[in-house]
């Protein structure tokens, strides 16, 4: 289908964005990402292990930045200052790369986002020239404020990070999608391909996930399932579902011409 996801002026044919964490090794990371068809991959920014042996492979060798659009994140940041500092370093690391995923957490137990710090960081980053894809709660008012600040995509959670609980509040997501003029991507909480399809059927522009693929019994097969679910969900949304009714009294087969 000739239909693209546009983020910060760039077109992507895949509406599935994937994380690169929690895999067994880099080879499995690469194989799963290939099976997912994802073009945008998230990475975390961390201190380099100084004792590291010189020849040790790095993630970037398995996922060359020429082949994928990197989305450096601020995972693990609990304040606006830490998030901004992390992404400025990421920009330097990736040669001036501007597209970033902002997430500011509020609680190490649940990993629930701190939207107050998120808004503060978003303001600084947008002013500083970043294209900010922002992870947030499923609060429609906050989502709209993040759009007004100038974020290039808003990414409400389906449920908590790593929980695999699926979409807990489709109604809020629907309101966020209805109000938004920037892409809305569900980020976090997807557990299985069915969840991803539902997100797309709600009208989301894309889905970002990591744990659902990486911790599946067969991550590579799950990555393929997610790719199909995203495509199926998108087409189902575009095709327009039939209305729900309790019953119809209109069978699909003709009522005339019955034998006898």
């Amino acid at each position, binding site marked *: 289908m000739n239909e693209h996801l546009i983020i910060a002026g760039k077109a992507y044919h895949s509406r599935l964005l994937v*994380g*690169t*964490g*929690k*895999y067994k090794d880099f080879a499995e*990371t690469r194989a799963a990402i290939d099976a997912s068809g994802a073009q945008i991959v*998230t*990475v*975390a*920014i*961390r*201190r*380099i292990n*100084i004792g*590291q*042996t*010189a020849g040790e492979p*790095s*993630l*970037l060798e398995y996922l060359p930045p020429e082949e994928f659009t*990197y989305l*450096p*994140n601020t*995972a693990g940041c609990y304040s606006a200052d830490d998030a901004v*500092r992390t992404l*400025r*370093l*990421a920009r*330097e*690391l*990736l040669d001036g790369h501007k597209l970033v995923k902002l997430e500011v957490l509020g609680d190490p137990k649940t990993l629930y986002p701190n939207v107050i710090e998120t808004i503060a960081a978003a303001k600084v980053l947008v002013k500083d020239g970043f294209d900010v894809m922002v992870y947030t709660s499923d609060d429609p008012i906050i989502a709209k404020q993040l759009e007004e600040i100038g974020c290039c995509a808003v990414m409400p959670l389906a449920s908590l*990070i*790593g929980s695999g609980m699926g979409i807990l509040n489709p109604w809020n997501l629907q309101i966020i999608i209805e109000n938004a003029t920037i892409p809305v991507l569900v980020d976090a909480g997807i557990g299985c391909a069915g969840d991803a399809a539902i997100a797309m059927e709600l009208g989301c522009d894309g889905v970002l*996930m*990591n*744990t659902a693929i990486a911790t599946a019994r067969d991550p590579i097969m799950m990555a393929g399932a997610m790719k199909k679910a995203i495509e199926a969900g998108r087409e189902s949304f575009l095709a327009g579902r039939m209305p729900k009714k309790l019953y119809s009294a209109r069978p699909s087969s003709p009522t005339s011409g019955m034998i006898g």
Partner: protein
Amino acid sequence: MQIFINGKLKQLDGENMTISALVLTLNLTGKRLAVEKNGEIVPRSLFLETKLLNGDKLEIIGAVGGG
């Protein structure tokens, strides 16, 4: 000279070592990394001329798997 690298105190031979020389000493040549010195980012283009002073605090970061 003593500096802090990623939160750990590190003893280095000689004074006025540049960031380029440090990268070489740490076996990190060719690795994609970014450096912050005392809270300020040091662009890669300035590694050759940026000298380290006793007590400097460096952060050396890279990209790792994450969601």
